[in-house]
């Protein structure tokens, strides 16, 4: 699991996750991802198009980070998920409490709304 940092534009971070959000992947990425996002409190768009697997550990991680950002008045939007990853979002109803969009344009519209 890799974290690829993008540009910060108008106070919105854009980053990509690459690999598997299984237990080893979450163990590897959760601390650096949280440390990068939560202290600065900026809104973030996360590109998931290169994430090939997610389990409940990844769902828990996203809820925890989104909640921490929400307490600072910021938003987290997920976008570009592959169909089987998106299916996990639907099964767990993550997409009902965290914005999940198909592409970067739609995600940006949520962040700036």
């Amino acid at each position, binding site marked *: 699991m890799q974290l690829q940092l993008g540009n910060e534009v108008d106070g919105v971070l854009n980053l990509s996750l690459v690999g598997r959000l299984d237990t080893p992947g979450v163990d590897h990425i959760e601390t650096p991802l949280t440390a990068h996002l939560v202290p600065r409190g900026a809104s973030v768009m996360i590109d998931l198009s290169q994430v090939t697997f997610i389990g409940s550990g990844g769902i828990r991680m996203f809820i925890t980070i989104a909640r921490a950002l929400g307490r600072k008045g910021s938003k987290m939007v997920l976008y570009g998920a592959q169909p089987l990853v998106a299916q996990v979002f639907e*099964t767990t109803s993550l997409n009902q*409490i965290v914005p999940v969009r198909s592409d970067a344009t739609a995600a940006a519209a949520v962040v700036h709304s």
Partner: protein
Amino acid sequence: MSARRIGIRFPGTHAGFAQGFARLREALDAERLAGTARYNAELVFEEIVANIVSHGARNGREADVCVTLEPRADSIVLIFSDDGVPFDPRGRPDPVIPKTLAEAKIGGFGLMLVRHAASSLDYVRTADDRNRLTVIVPRG
């Protein structure tokens, strides 16, 4: 003719989990399992074994975990056997779907995902004091 079975044995630790998952993926590669069935087989392994690693240790001793993979024409059967804390997942309720992020529970999604991926879930505590969970993942 009896069904082919592949056994994967490892300690209920994070390192054991990684070793076991790698061997499962090799077996699924050999089976040429792809798409939704492949994803669901990996998801079931992920959630069940992660639970054993996190909660299965008894008296400070990690669980001994044995996973048996049985490919069938219409399904993949996964049998999880461990000597950890007795745990029957069948009666555990799914988490309540939250209306807001603030009221969302952090955990409880693993078994929900397993139930969604599986067509059948069967549990016994065996005579030799092991959990045995049989999960059937449909191919179609």
